[in-house]
């Protein structure tokens, strides 16, 4: 959290201007502050200031036994908390060599893909709003509401699910869940072409996003971009394919890649991913085996000394958890590698020379969640 000046706007001796955006403007999707140096309408340099949501989660992990870690991960990426639950559970399972029953793996994939759909719908709505289109938000949140209702029926919560736990999942699918998800998926696939008519092909939306915020493939690689940001820059990189976890290697889905590297490319990747998530969900319910939903974990879990890491593809990119054990009931160190943190670190490079109005479009297209940035 470096660089604190109280003034919102400051004139520089050379005619430039420093503008302070944040930390609470509505368009940053969280408490992010940007110190933007302007030359007229153009950005000279930009310094992101983060840490407003820092809760010391990684230190809190060290003070708790392994089985109490997952609820905290709901507060990392709160738009896709099931994906965070999964990354943490996998790290614990790898540290202690715990095998997860097949049915639980399928249920985990179902939950994660539903959460991915919900997260991408939020992106669709808020990104449209960032560039001035307000209607899309209402459609996106109407669909998302149905996902939240389904997840609420299963987990009892609408955002902080705490439902993927070390060893498996705590309960089986509720009655009518499969029908509910499948009918939602059918409706969503009918809705997506409408979204294209509403927003994707809108000339104003295209002018605001095409050719704006271009990330070249080389820059994306060097910064460690992942998820839709990498795939919008021509990098075919999806951990569900490159290092498959759970049952992703048995599912048939494509990885949408666009070469342009602009805001539109990142938007299109996410829109195409929604179709792929729908495909994955249909296959999961078709193949869902009978059997146990969790491996019994001991009350006091003591994995052997050593370290382990998990890598998962969250809606935002590579979400990875590093965990180190010294043989005691509490972890010695837990570290979360958050995709939003990495993508925000690209901002100073991305914003150099762009117009101030495009700053918000570029920021929105990275789809960051400050909960996982600040931890």
């Amino acid at each position, binding site marked *: 959290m470096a660089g*604190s000046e109280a003034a919102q706007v400051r004139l520089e001796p050379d005619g430039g201007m420093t503008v302070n955006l944040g930390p609470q403007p509505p368009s940053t999707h969280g408490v992010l502050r940007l110190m933007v140096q302007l030359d007229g309408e153009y950005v000279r340099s930009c310094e992101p200031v983060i840490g407003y949501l820092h809760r010391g989660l990684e230190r809190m992990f060290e003070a708790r036994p392994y089985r109490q870690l997952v609820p905290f991960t709901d507060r990392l990426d709160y738009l896709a908390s099931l994906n965070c639950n999964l990354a943490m559970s996998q790290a614990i399972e790898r540290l202690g060599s715990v095998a997860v029953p097949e049915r639980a793996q399928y249920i985990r994939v179902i939950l994660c893909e539903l959460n991915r759909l919900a997260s991408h719908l939020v992106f669709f709505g808020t990104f449209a709003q960032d560039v001035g289109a307000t209607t899309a938000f209402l459609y996106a949140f109407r669909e998302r509401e149905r996902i939240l209702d389904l997840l609420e029926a299963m987990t009892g919560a609408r955002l902080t699910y705490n439902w993927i736990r070390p060893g498996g999942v705590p309960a089986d699918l509720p009655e009518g869940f499969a029908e509910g998800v499948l009918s939602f998926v059918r409706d969503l696939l009918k809705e997506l072409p409408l979204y294209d008519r509403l927003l994707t092909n809108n000339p104003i939306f295209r002018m605001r996003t095409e050719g704006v915020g271009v990330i070249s493939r080389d820059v994306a690689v060097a910064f460690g971009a992942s998820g839709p940001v990498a795939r919008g820059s021509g990098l075919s990189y999806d951990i569900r394919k490159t290092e498959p976890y759970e049952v992703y290697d048995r599912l048939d889905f494509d990885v949408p890649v666009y070469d342009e590297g602009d805001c539109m490319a990142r938007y299109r990747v996410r829109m195409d991913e929604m179709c792929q998530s729908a495909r994955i969900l249909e296959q999961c319910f078709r193949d869902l085996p009978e059997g146990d939903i969790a491996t019994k974990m001991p009350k006091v879990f003591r994995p052997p000394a050593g370290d382990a890491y998990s890598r998962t593809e969250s809606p935002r990119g590579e979400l990875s958890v590093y965990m180190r054990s010294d043989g005691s009931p509490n972890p010695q160190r837990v570290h979360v*590698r958050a995709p939003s943190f990495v993508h925000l670190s690209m901002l100073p490079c991305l914003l150099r020379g762009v117009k101030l109005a495009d700053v918000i479009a570029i920021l929105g297209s990275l789809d960051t969640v400050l909960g996982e940035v600040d931890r």
Partner: protein
Amino acid sequence: MRAAGGDGIEALAWQAGPRQQAESLRMRVSARVLRDVCRTLRDHPDLRFDYPGDLCGTDLGSEIHLWYRLWSHEHGRSAIIDVILPSSDAVVPTVSDIWPGYDWHERECFDMLGVRFEGHPRDGDPARMRILLPEDWEGHPFRKDYQPVFSGDPLHGPQETN
């Protein structure tokens, strides 16, 4: 690899990945040769670890353990570098010029553990190096001996140190 690091490479082995994945390269190197090793890892045609994955520091008491994880898009495998530093003099050369993605990871590691990254663009300016904590924060909270000082009012957090 041996040529790049010489005797600074203390251990080097291929090990099985977490699951059915390709095996990953794990090595323990001394801080002295870290940059040479990293450049080789990035540039050698058989290695090409071009993607900065993660950096995590752990306080082990008298030592600090740094854990770098890399990924090669071309070969589809990971590399892990372990670096052990003495806690009293935790200095390591930066790799943020080799992979720009390590810039913020190194800042976070300094902020939380007080590891100095020699050659980092903000090295020597602790206030600007801090990333998650306020720039006037004292101490590094992920050190195991860190003692938070509270003002007595839990809503307002630490007000003064000692």
